[in-house]
């Protein structure tokens, strides 16, 4: 029976919550602030992770430079996605964004020589060789551990959350600017914003790109945390988790995202501890199913009973 108080386990949950904070922050910018229904957000995570891994293993690039390229490529991906699709009506846009992320996942699965195929990044260096992209990361983390006198887990936790909180602050500052004000107006009423001279399309594209950058950074941390990944790690399910986190915390505020991520992490991980009957009758695969059933029920319950999330105001919902 696993101890509920196991530190290693909870620091793992903390790290994943940090990664999800970055990831969901992207959704918050795109939807909570700009009103964009991007359901393909996981694609940006994948682009960030894969670009970095491929450049390091195949082109022998410096990992930090490769990471930068990953973020830039994801932003470019946002532009390429947005240019043809942002003028579509909202529900069509949503469907094309899912198509976007699935197409990328298909390509990643099938183009073995580029991405290692369905086996994942282990295959990047070709058959028979195991590829690693995170040597530089390991040494960086090692130096953090030494400087702060902490263990591996804690070091990662600190680094992830430092970046995540910096991102939260950055987004919060951005939204207080006149630029942020325009984004919010577009969320409220595009036509009113256009009638006031705002180029709605350009702003939406910018929101998409900012969100893409955040998604890519989340992808980088995902890659570094798990040392290995495959296309199936970037399935639409992750996008829905991000949406759930944003709704859970409350739409339209930057600081509610980390709270939502932590609550989500606790719910998700907490089901691991159903060690008492009748749940102990299930094996671990079955408990994995149960976990997703619980997540689904939480989403439904949220929308039924508290659609404004933990920190949203009922008032704002009424004004909608």
């Amino acid at each position, binding site marked *: 029976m696993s101890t509920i108080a196991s530190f290693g386990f909870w620091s793992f949950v903390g790290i994943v919550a940090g990664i999800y904070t970055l990831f969901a922050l992207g959704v918050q910018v795109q939807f909570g602030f700009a009103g964009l*229904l991007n359901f393909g957000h996981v694609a940006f995570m994948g682009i960030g992770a894969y670009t970095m891994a491929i450049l390091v293993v195949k082109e022998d690039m410096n990992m930090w430079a490769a990471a930068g390229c990953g973020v830039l490529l994801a932003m470019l991906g946002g532009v390429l996605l947005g240019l*043809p*699709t942002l*003028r*579509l*009506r*909202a*529900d*069509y846009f*949503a*469907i*094309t964004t*899912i*198509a*976007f992320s*699935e*197409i990328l996942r*298909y*390509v990643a699965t*099938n183009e073995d020589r580029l991405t290692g195929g369905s086996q994942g990044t282990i295959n990047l260096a070709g058959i028979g060789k195991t590829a690693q992209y995170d040597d530089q990361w390991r040494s960086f983390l090692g130096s953090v551990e030494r400087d702060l006198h902490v263990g591996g887990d804690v070091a990662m936790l600190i680094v992830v959350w430092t970046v995540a909180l910096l991102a939260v602050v950055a987004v919060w500052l951005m939204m207080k600017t006149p630029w942020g004000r325009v984004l919010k107006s577009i969320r409220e009423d595009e*036509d009113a914003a256009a009638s006031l001279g705002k180029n709605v399309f350009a702003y939406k594209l910018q929101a998409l790109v900012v969100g893409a950058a955040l998604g890519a950074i989340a992808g980088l941390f995902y890659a570094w945390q798990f040392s290995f990944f495959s296309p199936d790690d970037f399935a639409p*399910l992750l996008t*829905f988790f991000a*949406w*759930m986190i944003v*709704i859970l915390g409350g739409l339209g505020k930057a600081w509610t995202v980390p709270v939502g991520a932590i609550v989500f992490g606790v719910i998700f991980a907490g089901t691991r501890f159903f060690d008492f009957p009748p749940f102990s009758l*299930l094996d671990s*695969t*079955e408990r994995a*199913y*149960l976990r*997703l*059933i619980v*997540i*689904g*029920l*939480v*989403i*439904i319950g949220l*929308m*039924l009973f508290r*659609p404004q999330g933990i920190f949203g105001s009922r008032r704002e919902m009424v004004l*909608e």
Partner: protein
Amino acid sequence: MFMQLLANGLVTGSVIALAAAGISIVYGILRLVNFAYGDYMTFGAFAGILFNVKLGLPIVLAAVLAMAATALLSVALELVLWRRLRAKSAGFMSLFLVSVGLALVLRHVIYLVAGPQPRTYAVDPYKVYVIGSARLSGAQGIAIVVSAVGIVLIGLLIAGTGVGRMMRALADDLPLAAVAGVRTGRVIVAAWIVSGLLAGLAGVLAGLVQTSFDPQLGFTLLLPIFAAVVLGGIGNVYGALAGGLALGLAMELSTWTELAGGVNPTYKPVVAFGALVLVLLLRPQGLFGRARVV
């Protein structure tokens, strides 16, 4: 090879068409994009397994029972869930997210109850129909005939029957229909019943055509189905049927080697998405949809 691909395209296309029609019917009236629809289909497919494999009933009877079971599920969810959400004036996004949550729940309950192992229907695997240069398996043959009948029936239902007319009235203007005395609650339930029947049918047919399937069946088909719905103009049932057939044909024919080597078959869904994006670029309201009004 062309004839074979054409036949395959019709099979795939008709399954997608039926499912797309099922989604469109509900969307037209309730403006609800039901992301759990794929899992309604999976439910139907597995109900079919229960009746056909576990209980040993002939496939046609099993399919009919599976359709009924899915229709029941559909109505139950309307009464327990969707109706309550509408009473709270839930917006488009809330409904979509609930359908996402529902999809998760349905799929994993099926996983829990039925397990992840692949299932196959009890049909003769050696039966082959030969039409010209195309060979259709027994399952494919059944699928084409049944879907053709299904498509015609749906068309007749919407165009010809009283219920169909009322559904169209609600799709046009729900509040107006309510004020005009139409029993909207009942028509909505009727729409969910039809949607559920179609989901069950499409699920069983998809299961037949794929030979073996697991609980991911419906969800993997969901995106091509949505593509068909959007292609046809969301809410337009005839458009959904046409869109489904068109996409099915496009997907299969794209692998034709005469077309510059043809597309790698594993990329078929990508062809469906690509076709969708192309159409939307040229005609943002879909093939049969209505243009936006400010």
